[in-house]
């Protein structure tokens, strides 16, 4: 029986007191198996030491079997995490188990019997005469357990006993502990950081809050008494308990004021993120919800000065970051991924309201952002380089070095994905980042990531989020500390970035516009093709670089396809995606809308047939189908960046290839056909960074290479292994034992 009442522990030192445990009260009845979990640093070990009588609590009391604990109580034993340090290396295994019994002055034959039984119980009879250091880690911890058993305690404390052994050994030891506990009927308090282990082992799980520690939740584990590594963990109740404990720990971890949400406009309030939230030189401006015109908050506006200062700070911070272990960097990225997952709904709402995306697309963006963080975490684990062949007697190495500071410029359309896909891998590989999101979407393009990485424990100065206009952009591209630019946006701006970057000899990754072709062959399933075509042109109001800007349809199905697409378009609801069930939200602003509309009207004037749409209400532009277009019509020839589907006909496949290839761009290509190999053969003749056979043009995954050719950019610099090349420099290193003799 173990009673902990009102225990508080304050550490005093060097003029500063730290409250490790605030107020802990719980009891564990005779024979109970209680697991204690909590966020790291929550004072689990302090609690255990207070119970063991190794540390006096500042106030409150601990009772074991009714007796107050003042020093280590009799009938209590402890299994420590550090097995290698808790066994006596100069004593053989049996003597290690025997020593506590000798101190208890038990008769020799009793001792011998107990040692034998205990070693048999943990399966170490054969190792009795070995020294602990001759055994594996798992076996050493078994010895420590045997020592605890032989002592026949009434209370057994275990402090993360399996944290340092491998997974298989751990599973074995967990089952061993369950057997021992059943046999001894001992009260067992098991401290662990592993939620699964706690639920698997315990009858009860105590969840502690972050320091100063309290009991956040006392959870009964209603799983069958006999536990099984596979069956128990597969039990739906197990998953339920796990989720509950996990949520409880997460709630207990960060210390935020409860009235603020994770992504709260009050956090930035007219500021930018550069060494904490700070006022920018360029003043501030409203963040407007395009669907309603409402102000969602205010953003700081960075100018050139802000960028220069941020880049210098970032360069300074980057040195230490590059020197941290890969595990530390990976851990930050993993936590960032977790934080995005935990606050997915909140973040989705920002994407929806700020960019006008429908909730489905918002969820998709949040999902990709999570995946980008986890992929980046894995990227940090990749080998640093290669050992090269050399014709000299020397070690010749390729070592990847972080580039230093990476400048990221992201656009307004899908800012969350287009920022995080550079920010996450660049950070993971040891770089610092200065991120300039579009002024219209500073939150989902930047502040959201600032919040995530701030909470994920990214060291100060490594990520700067500076929403700004052309001046800030130019400062970013020309700054001396920024060596690599990752730009996503319009081709004209991209060209300017490339020119400026070239003058400063920078590496520039460009992911620009597109006018992607969607080819419908005569053998395609037309109903599916229409649905895919509508999605490709109208998703996110056509404001996606991969949007299908040209529907190239075989003449035999042309009429049917156009009619069905127009009908489809007529029935798609357009409106505020945050409050209504709609398929299309608003265009980002009036300028974009007017540009879209002028392309549509001039195309109609040039002789195209307006099969659907072509009108707007405020920023809500109706999905538009333009039939009978020719190659010289503006909406066909140019990138529209609006919900417009120009449809053109072809008669032979050669003609289809010629039409599709006749474009300055080359981002995404879709071919819909019953014969996938034929589709692939056609695709081989058309320049494009991305090809989807029997799928539409808009697709994205963090693990896939992403980027276009021709005017669409500099190729696949994002996603998959491309990130490694994009954000590191390759250094050639050679080493030899002696300096070679040279002719002079």
């Amino acid at each position: 029986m173990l009673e902990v009442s009102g225990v508080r522990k304050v550490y005093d030192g060097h003029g500063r007191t730290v409250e490790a445990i605030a107020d802990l009260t719980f009891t564990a009845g005779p024979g109970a198996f209680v697991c204690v979990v909590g966020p790291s640093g929550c004072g689990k070990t302090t609690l255990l030491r207070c119970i063991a009588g190794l540390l006096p609590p500042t106030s409150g009391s601990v009772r074991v079997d009714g007796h107050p604990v003042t020093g280590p109580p009799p009938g209590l034993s402890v299994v420590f995490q550090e097995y290698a340090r808790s066994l006596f290396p100069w004593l053989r295994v049996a003597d290690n188990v025997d020593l506590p019994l000798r101190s208890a002055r038990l008769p020799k034959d009793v001792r011998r019997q107990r040692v034998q039984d205990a070693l048999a119980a943990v399966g170490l009879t054969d190792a009795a005469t070995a020294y602990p250091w001759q055994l594996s880690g798992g076996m050493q911890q078994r010895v420590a357990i045997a020592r605890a058993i032989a002592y026949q305690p009434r209370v057994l404390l275990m402090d993360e006993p399996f944290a340092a052994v491998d997974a298989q050994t751990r599973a074995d030891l967990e089952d061993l502990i369950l057997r021992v506990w059943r046999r001894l009927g001992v009260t067992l308090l098991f401290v662990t950081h592993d939620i699964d282990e706690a639920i698997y082992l315990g009858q009860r799980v105590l969840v502690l809050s972050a320091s100063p520690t309290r009991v956040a939740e006392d959870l009964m584990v209603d799983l069958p008494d006999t536990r099984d590594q596979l069956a128990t963990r597969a039990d739906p109740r197990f998953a339920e308990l796990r989720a509950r404990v996990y949520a409880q720990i997460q709630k207990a971890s960060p210390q935020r004021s409860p009235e603020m949400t994770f992504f709260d406009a009050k956090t930035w309030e007219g500021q930018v993120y550069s060494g904490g939230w700070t006022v920018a030189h360029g003043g501030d401006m409203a963040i407007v919800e395009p669907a309603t015109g409402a102000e969602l908050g205010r953003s700081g506006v960075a100018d050139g000065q802000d960028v220069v200062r941020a880049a210098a700070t970032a360069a300074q911070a980057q040195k230490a970051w590059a020197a941290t272990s890969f595990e530390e960097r990976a851990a930050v990225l993993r936590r960032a991924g977790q934080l995005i997952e935990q606050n997915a709904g909140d973040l989705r709402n920002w994407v929806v309201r700020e960019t006008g995306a429908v909730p489905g697309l918002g969820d998709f963006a949040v999902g990709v952002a999570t995946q980008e963080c986890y992929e980046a975490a894995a990227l940090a684990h990749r080998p640093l380089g290669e050992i090269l062949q050399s014709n000299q007697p020397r070690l010749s190495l390729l070592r990847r070095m972080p580039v230093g500071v990476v400048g990221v410029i992201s656009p307004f359309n899908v800012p969350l994905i287009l920022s995080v896909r550079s920010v996450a891998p660049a950070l993971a590989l040891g770089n610092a980042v200065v991120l300039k999101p579009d002024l219209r979407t500073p939150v989902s393009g930047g502040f959201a990531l600032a919040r995530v990485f701030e909470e994920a424990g990214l060291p100060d100065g490594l990520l700067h989020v500076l929403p700004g206009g052309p001046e800030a952009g130019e400062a970013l591209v020309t700054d001396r500390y920024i060596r690599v630019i990752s730009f996503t946006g319009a081709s004209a701006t991209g060209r300017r970035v490339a020119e400026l970057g070239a003058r400063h000899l920078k590496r520039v990754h460009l992911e620009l516009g597109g006018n992607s072709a969607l080819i419908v062959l005569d053998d395609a399933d037309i109903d599916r093709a229409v649905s895919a075509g509508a999605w490709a042109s109208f998703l996110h109001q056509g404001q996606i670089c991969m949007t299908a800007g040209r529907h190239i349809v075989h003449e035999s199905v042309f009429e049917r396809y156009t009619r069905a697409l127009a009908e489809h378009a007529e029935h798609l609801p357009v409106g505020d995606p945050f409050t209504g069930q709609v398929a299309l939200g608003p265009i980002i602003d009036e300028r974009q809308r007017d540009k879209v509309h002028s392309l549509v009207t001039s195309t109609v004037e040039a002789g195209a047939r307006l099969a659907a749409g072509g009108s707007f209400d405020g920023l809500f532009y109706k999905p538009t189908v333009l039939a009978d277009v020719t190659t010289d019509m503006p909406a066909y020839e140019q990138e529209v960046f609006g919900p417009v589907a120009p449809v053109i006909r072809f008669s032979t496949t050669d003609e289809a290839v010629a039409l599709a290839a006749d474009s300055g761009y080359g981002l995404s290509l879709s071919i819909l056909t019953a014969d996938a190999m034929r589709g692939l053969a056609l695709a081989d003749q058309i320049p494009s960074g991305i090809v989807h056979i029997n799928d539409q043009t808009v697709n994205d995954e963090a693990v896939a290479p992403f980027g276009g050719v021709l005017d669409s950019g500099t190729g696949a610099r994002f996603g998959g292994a491309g990130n490694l090349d994009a954000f590191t420099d390759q250094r050639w290193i050679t080493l030899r034992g002696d300096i070679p003799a040279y002719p002079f």
Partner: protein
Amino acid sequence: MSVRRAATAVALPIVLLTAWWFISAGSTDYQWPPLSKIVAAFVATWTPDRLRSEVVPSLERLAAGYALAVVLGIGLGVLIGSSPWLRAFCEPVLEFMRAIPPPVLVPIIMLVAGIGDAMKVVVIASGCIWPVLLNTVEGVRGRDEVLSDTCRVYGVRGGLRLRHLILRAASPQILTGARQALSIAIILMVISELFAAQNGLGFTVMQFSRGFQIPEMWSGVFLLGFIGVALAGAYQLAERWLLRWYHGQRSTGTGPRES
């Protein structure tokens, strides 16, 4: 020890002795007698009687002084090492005492302990105690906290704790100190016999030197060398046995991290 290693170990001494033998063969300089004469003198001088009358008393004093130093050093070291307060209190004095070369203490010790065997034992002990004491303090202080906690939890205290925790945990350092002390002990054994002695190895060598019995003097120097080597060898065997756990643990790389 393999044959190869044994051969490596004795190769240089053999070469040196052979060179000495031939270089000194025709020497008429009485300061540098031929090695053959020294060997002859060694056999003639160090008869069993001589060994009993001169060498045994020296070794007895060495053993007594060394033992005294080790026992006192470990005892005081455990005491001082266990208390941070006591350690801070004693440290300056210990450092001061350690810095004094023991031979200069001989006249002072003579005033207190007279000129008999007691004086010589005290001289040896006073020089040997410092490495043992200071190393023991370090060893006791630096023991692993987890092991200490383990002892507290299981109620291991008193003599059991001293034997199985404190002394064993400190033993690698203690034995390092004791090894340093052994070489100091041999030096001090000789030095103590240069003052007011009636017998002993140092005394005898001094006598030969003063009586211009140069080959005999050389043979005494050789004997001292042999005794030193023999003691060091015996020590090494003892240490290896006492610290077999320590060397085993280190070679498997499972030892506690240095903290």
